[in-house]
């Protein structure tokens, strides 16, 4: 670290202390733990700004925030897992004594013996720390993979596949399934109003052709040449429109997040707005 870095760090520390004092003073009327809360708000604001400073470039403040975040959040998830899964789900089924210690309702049942299986598998998983018995850690892995493979197999076949295919069965001739009212009605609706019949039909045609060409793009075992290649090219176009549209659509949500953070800085920390 060179001299200018020390100066910057010094200035930030002074500002931090200043903010803490001012914040505590402004809270002292309404809050009996004002010193602590003044510190916490200052800390939150400091961490917020430290992350924003990353936009300029990597710097010691960002490194500090990043390392703190990693340590605290890792422990956060571990304790959460301990209390909710081990204490919440496992102990009530395995041990009356421990249930009493943790004050969770014991749930006796003859089937509870099955819950020793994940415990044993969990211990097997830890075996990978041993060089000799490391291969045993593959068993729990196999169970996990087998479980999700089995579940996914049917789940995706049903929801993502059969349901999606059947919702592509759209009427191409009328707004409702088999409600074609003859050519006259069609011609009289030949305008492009957003709720008109033509727009609805156009939508259905585009959905159908779009899905068709999109699927063609995902053919792997056939060369994309000729008519097939052209369809696959249209497929790429449809995908590009999809990606562009989704991108544009999410911008709004992202800005809202920033609004939230900036509001925190202006309202809770600096008290510029009410």
């Amino acid at each position, binding site marked *: 670290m060179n001299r200018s870095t020390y100066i910057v760090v010094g200035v930030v520390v002074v500002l931090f202390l200043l903010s803490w004092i001012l914040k505590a003073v402004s809270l002292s009327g309404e809050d009996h733990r004002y010193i602590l809360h003044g510190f916490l708000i200052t800390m939150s604001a400091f961490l917020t700004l430290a992350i924003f400073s990353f936009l300029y470039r990597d710097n010691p403040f960002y490194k500090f925030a990043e390392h703190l975040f990693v340590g605290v959040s890792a422990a956060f998830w571990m304790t959460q897992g301990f209390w909710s899964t081990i204490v919440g789900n496992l102990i009530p089924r395995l041990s009356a004594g421990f249930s009493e210690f943790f004050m969770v309702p014991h749930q006796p049942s003859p089937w509870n013996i099955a819950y020793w299986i994940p415990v044993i598998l969990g211990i097997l998983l830890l075996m990978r720390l041993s060089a000799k018995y490391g291969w045993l850690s593959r068993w729990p892995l196999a169970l996990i993979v087998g479980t999700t493979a089995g579940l996914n197999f049917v789940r995706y076949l049903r929801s993502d596949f059969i349901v999606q295919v059947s919702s592509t069965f759209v009427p191409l001739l009328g707004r409702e399934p088999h409600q074609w009212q003859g050519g006259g009605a069609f011609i009289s609706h030949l305008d492009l109003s957003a709720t008109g019949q033509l727009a609805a039909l156009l939508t259905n045609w585009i959905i159908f052709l779009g899905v068709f060409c999109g699927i063609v793009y995902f053919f792997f075992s056939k060369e994309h040449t000729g008519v097939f290649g052209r369809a696959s090219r249209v497929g790429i176009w449809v995908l590009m429109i999809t990606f562009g549209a989704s991108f544009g659509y999410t911008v709004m949500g992202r800005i809202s997040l920033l609004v939230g953070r900036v509001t925190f800085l*202006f309202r809770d920390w600096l008290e510029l707005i009410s």
Partner: protein
Amino acid sequence: MPDVGVMVPLVAIFGGLIWLLVRAIRGREVERRVIFIFIFVAVATPILFPITFQEHATPVVKDLFDRIENLPPGSTILMSFDFDPAMAPEVQPMANALARHSLTREHKIVFMCLWATGQSLLNTTLEYVIKPDFPHLVDGVDFVNVGYKAGNEGVLNVIVSDFKKMFPTDVNGVPLDSIEIFDKVGSCRDFDLILTVGGGRPGPKEWVLFVGDPANVPIGAGVAAVVAPQLYPYYPRQVIGILGGIKGAAEYESELAQTHPRFEDMEKPGLRMMGPQTLAHVVIMAFIVIGNIAFFRGRRGRKTE
């Protein structure tokens, strides 16, 4: 002096954009930190000095507004709060505006939630919107809060045929049978309109699939922007109107303020949030244009070399 506060950053943003445009025409690229500064200013300025843009209600929003406006006074409306604090900034403004509108048209509202986290947000609406704005309305007579029931879609499956089976009492323990609103409400079919505000699961989609469709009750939805596209296919048949994201909320608020002048001075979080949104969108679009100009000028420059 908010006007000066608004004008200076606006001039800075648009002046800066024009300067960048001129640079782009000469084929120069913009550094990303410059873009970051523009975005920050575009978002921060309207928060400090509120800028509101005129909003027109699009048909999806207008349809729902008109339905509430045109229901005969005294109709019963069910309103469900299906969201958590993370989603609240986006959808709570809608819930508030919808509740205000319904109550000012003298409709009776039954409040409920499918999300455990919705309960406290529902209380916020009751406490900060209904009490101050409609001090004469009485809990249990003009509106009822039946609270939260666990069971997600299961709850919907039950209330579609029997409301009191799932909610025998309101949150204060008063039996629904003794509440006048429920004299003519046995199931969800008996509501004149169902409003669902949320964005996750269960949410508006489940309301349509489990209640709206089977019971043939009109449903109006207020949803987070991310989920709105999934709901559009149901409009206008199964869902009579959709407020999508902050923009939907803003449109509804401005429509409400225009039709009912008493709400002109109300808190309009949706419209207020639209300020940063609009400016940021404009800045992003301006940068897309500048990027393309720089790209084509740069390419021509390379060709002539």
